[in-house]
């Protein structure tokens, strides 16, 4: 912001400023990396077992659902919106696929992936319709649909609880089958990270998401319709949340309509931790991947310490405040440095 102001005054020499800006962009994940380093060091001393390949993969497997939701949330946050219904979408889709799978075990299991994507997409489209076309504030629109999807999840499940024996093996294998010693759910997560990373960075469509998040007005002038972009982002977000729902039930081999409660908060937290600006227009996939690993690491680390599992929420909360605060601090410092550089010119 400040930089923008300064340069508008046209006083700074452009070359000096550029080197500084690149420094600033370089340090956007600064706080995050520092925290990750500290945690790794502590973990190395206290619980070295965390670095065993199996533990590490298990850790990613356990948290993969959060990773998928974080990608979903990221697509929406970059447009300048927010989607707090993804936890409910996860539950709704999970219940839908689990129930109909358990009732129709003869149907090949890949069908359920498609069903999950389709139902998730529909949920997302509803959000997109409300926010993109009917212009309801994203927070409120998705607060409403959060209630609706959670209620639908209950309706479809009739309050039932599904156990592993009610699930076909091939369904569960969508999450648990090991390919090159790595479970399928982790592969899917990795593929999604790559696909959406590329999507956001290199495709016309992805870049327009940033454009909308930066400035609606400028986008309109450039001939980009914000309603379309928001509709599609939120639809994609719903689709990913749907995928996460099906994989959740496959991975844990249980399902009940209460799953995924407040997962959206964790997803938002991962995004913000990963440098996605809550006001839109900024954020890269690499940052989100690091933040995801950090969050998984913390959860895993805590669970390895006997009797500390209750600390999980408090520590996660403290770390997000700390990391985001640290980022703010570094930005302030950078601004101060910029002012000093400017002073030399006066």
């Amino acid at each position, binding site marked *: 912001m400040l930089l923008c102001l300064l340069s508008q005054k046209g006083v700074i020499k452009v070359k000096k400023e550029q080197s500084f800006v690149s420094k600033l962009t370089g340090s956007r994940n600064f706080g995050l990396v520092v925290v990750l380093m500290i945690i790794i060091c502590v973990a190395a001393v206290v619980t070295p077992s965390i670095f065993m390949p199996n533990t590490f993969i298990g850790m990613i497997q356990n948290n993969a659902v959060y990773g998928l939701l974080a990608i979903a949330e990221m697509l929406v946050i970059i447009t300048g919106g927010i989607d707090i219904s993804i936890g409910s979408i996860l539950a709704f889709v999970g219940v839908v696929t689990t129930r109909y799978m358990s009732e129709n075990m003869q149907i090949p299991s890949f069908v359920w992936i498609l069903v999950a994507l389709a139902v998730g997409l529909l949920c997302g489209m509803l959000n997109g319709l409300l926010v993109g076309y009917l212009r309801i504030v994203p927070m*409120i629109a998705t607060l409403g649909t959060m209630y609706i999807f959670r209620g639908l999840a209950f309706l479809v499940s009739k309050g039932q609880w599904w156990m592993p024996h009610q699930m076909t093996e091939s369904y569960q294998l969508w999450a648990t089958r090991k390919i090159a010693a790595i479970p399928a759910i982790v592969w899917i997560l990795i593929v999604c990270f790559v696909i959406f990373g590329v999507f956001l960075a290199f495709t016309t469509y992805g870049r327009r998401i940033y454009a909308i998040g930066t400035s609606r007005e400028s986008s309109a002038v450039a001939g980009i319709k914000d309603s379309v972009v928001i509709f599609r982002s939120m639809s994609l977000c719903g689709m990913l949340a749907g995928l996460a729902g099906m994989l959740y039930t496959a991975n844990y081999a249980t399902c009940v309509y209460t799953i995924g409660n407040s997962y959206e908060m964790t997803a938002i937290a991962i995004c913000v931790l990963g440098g996605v600006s809550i006001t839109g227009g900024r954020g890269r996939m690499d940052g989100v991947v690091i933040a995801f690993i950090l969050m998984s690491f913390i959860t895993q680390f805590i669970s390895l310490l006997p009797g500390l599992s209750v600390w999980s929420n408090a520590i996660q909360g403290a770390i997000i405040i700390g990391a985001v605060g640290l980022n703010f601090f570094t930005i302030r410092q950078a601004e101060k440095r910029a002012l000093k550089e400017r002073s030399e010119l006066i």
Partner: protein
Amino acid sequence: MADNKSNARNLKVDDGFKLGSFLKSWEMVLIYILIVINLVLIAARPDLYFKSGTLQSIIQSGMDVGPLVLGMALILMLGDIDVSCASVMIFASMCTGLSIDNGLPMGLAVLIGLLGGVFCGAINGFLVAYIGMPAVIVTISSSMLFRGIVEIILNVNSLKNFPEFYVSLSWNNIGGILPVSLVIFLIMGAVYVYILQKSRFGRNLYIIGNNAICGQYSGIDVKKTKLMVFMLMGFMSGVASIFFVGRMGGSVSSSMGTGYEMNAIATCVLGGISTNGGKGKMYGPIIATLIMAFLTYTLGLMDIDANVRKIVTGIVLITAILISNFRDKSDQKKKSLVRAKAAEAK
């Protein structure tokens, strides 16, 4: 809005209360909705409706979220949001419960609970106002932190020693007719109406919510005001803990009260407070709190499951927003027409 119109004067002083616009104001619409719900209830279950105690228990069921609604209205007025208030409420309950367990006198214990709430609010407020972090991020993570602290301290236990008046406040009626909780809620509501509609502090909130920069230039201490609003929210979370614990029959555990923050936000929005800040009046959320209580209870009477009721809540919320958006638009059109006519007349 209605109030402004009724106070409208030309430069030549043309005063007059306009009944038409008053009857069409959002607050009146809410009252109509409240009446309609009551009529539906009377038509559907006349036996129950007129049975003594029914109305009282309907109202009582909605009062525990009331203090949160009042606090939240001011937060939304600033254009901020607080999703940590439910966690703060549990935190405050824990403060009181632990104090009593440790043999402190009752009055002191209650005070400690309230101060616990204020303390949490102050942390949120400090990070939002003085560090400049976005309120969503701060409160999502502080929500994890505060609930996390309760989890650490209580683990899976629950606190059972609370002052007896907690339960009686939530369940008793004055003279067997008037619910104590309603009286207290209305008194608090009146105080909040004073704060927002009548006091200088309230005017400052409108100014900051609409244009914080202009507020700063007009000599308002924006940061301090924000901090105070968050502390007030914390205090109200402390007050809510009294009713909440009372409703729960005098016990509390770390997993209770999730989702209360969303209910509070939804009620405020239904009450006509804009999440963008600076718009709405205090009367709206107060009426909306009653609407939510009646709505939930009516649906309950119709044997609709609590989870399915969520669907209705969601739909009501979204419809309310759509209607108020639509009203705003047609209002603007009308105003520009009037202006055009005035211009022609000149």
